[in-house]
């Protein structure tokens, strides 16, 4: 996609981050294509294929919809009351244009209940497509820099 400028990609990623931070999860789902994937690899195997390695999260669209349904349910105890997150996205780069692949750095601060802040640091890898005039997410992967989750605990919110 030669018509895409970095500013448009940045606007799109900032919009996605705002939706996730506001827990507007149905609107977030609408940013994804029907064959979209969402992955968080195990910390010790950041470059892997979920068919052959254990991931922390490896969702297809069906499971992402189930994940969102779960997160909106008060019986999802890990997120009830829900986490309050704040995402900072930076160093956005278009690394390939056909398909459109984008990388970015992230810091996600997560507060839950009275707990101390948990800070998730890493990079995103996106594959984006143009659909109905706007950008849509075909693949998003969040790769954490920490060698292990350790004090980060769970990834029960959408990273």
């Amino acid at each position: 996609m030669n018509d895409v400028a970095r500013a448009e990609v940045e606007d799109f990623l900032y919009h996605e981050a705002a939706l996730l931070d506001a827990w507007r999860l149905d609107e977030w789902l609408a940013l994804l294509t029907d064959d979209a994937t969402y992955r968080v690899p195990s910390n010790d195997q950041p470059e892997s294929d979920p068919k052959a390695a254990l991931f922390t999260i490896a969702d297809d669209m069906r499971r992402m919809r189930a994940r969102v349904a779960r997160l909106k349910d008060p019986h999802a105890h890990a997120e009830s009351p829900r986490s309050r997150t704040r995402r900072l996205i930076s160093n956005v780069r278009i690394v390939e244009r056909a398909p459109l692949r984008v990388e970015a750095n992230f810091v996600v601060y997560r507060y839950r209940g009275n707990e101390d802040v948990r800070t998730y640091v890493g990079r995103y890898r996106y594959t984006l497509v143009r659909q109905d005039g706007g950008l849509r997410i075909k693949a998003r992967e969040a790769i954490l820099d920490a060698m292990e989750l350790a004090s980060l605990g769970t990834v029960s919110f959408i990273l």
Partner: protein
Amino acid sequence: MSASRIVLNEPQQHRFEINRAALVDAAIFREEQERIFERCWLYVGHESEVRAPGDFRTRTVCGRPLILCRDSRNELRVFLNTCRHRGTVVCREAQGNAERYTCFYHGWTYDRDGRLYAVPGQSAYPPNFDRTELGLKEPPRVEAYRGFVFLNFDANAVPLREYLGSAVEYIDLVLDQSPSGRMEMIHGTQEYDIRANWKLLVENSYDDYHLLTTHATWLDYLKSSGVEVKRPEKGHMLPSHGLGKDLGNGHGTTDNVNFRGRPVAAWIPIYGDAAKPELERIRAELVQRLGPERAKRVADTNRNLLIFPNLVLLDGSSVSVRSFQPLAPDRMRVRAGALGPVEETPLARQVRLDSFLTFYGPGGFATPDDIAALEAVQEGLGAYKEVQWSPLTRGMAKQGEQLNTDEAHLRAFWIQWDKLMRAA
């Protein structure tokens, strides 16, 4: 608080209570380290995690830095990862292959067999300096059962096989998933902390009483994906019959008729139509190899097995090997991975890994709620001086079989814990 007042067990009166100090008190925590973790067999890792001479993994068990590795003859070894000179860890990578282990501080170098190979400036040491006595130390005992490697810091401990006792029946049942009886750890480790006492995870790992409430959203997910979740029979809480078993020596297990999917070999719609023939093939192989009865046991029952004190084999939606290290009275580090048959096809492996993620792990649809529960318990235990006792009496007045929603298997853990804490 002395340990002798922690477990109140009066079977005639149907009383069994745990003093909550066991989950909070720092002195009890320190005592546990000596009386339980320094005397019991502790899981280190699986033989498949190191395959060739020089392969290594570093990990921490009971606070001790360890190197799990293969020596020059490809024998499995466990070294204490500490230089004999000043104590530096000599291997600082999580995994890899090493010709030698070199301490970067003063340059002492050990070979794959743990022998001290080179000491810079050795001539300055007095004549009694003996390099052959200064190899990497090993834990007093290291033994394996069918690929699972354990250590014991007590040189006088009973052999591992004797320690495992009747729990091996259930380990064998897991390993029967593999035509050759061999399974391997799949790449990818889930390592995370829980802000709770380690014994709460012991209980949680094989307590099925919490399933309906803690995992309501997981059950909803199964139902909405087309899994039949039956109404419980009279006197039961869960969709299928299941037992809780005391296996002796503090080990215990659930033993349940399966109602969820199992990669070996109970297909559910979540696995996709393409996987159906593959699971039928796996089941046919089981029947042919093991006979119909044993095959049914492998494929159509599931189990969560506790090996006392801190190893759990979760053989349900997949097979997870989960061990945990106490870090503080209110904190533990969990290490979990997926175990699969060595000869599994790529498709079957994919089903196994995908099925794992529907329930287990820090991003799964169930484990995060377990963790939330344990952390909520630990928070509530702040009132342990005012609210001292927790009852653990489910099923106690019953004759005959104990269900997985009863607590006989949990009581067995605490009775063994109490016995070791009070031993001379």
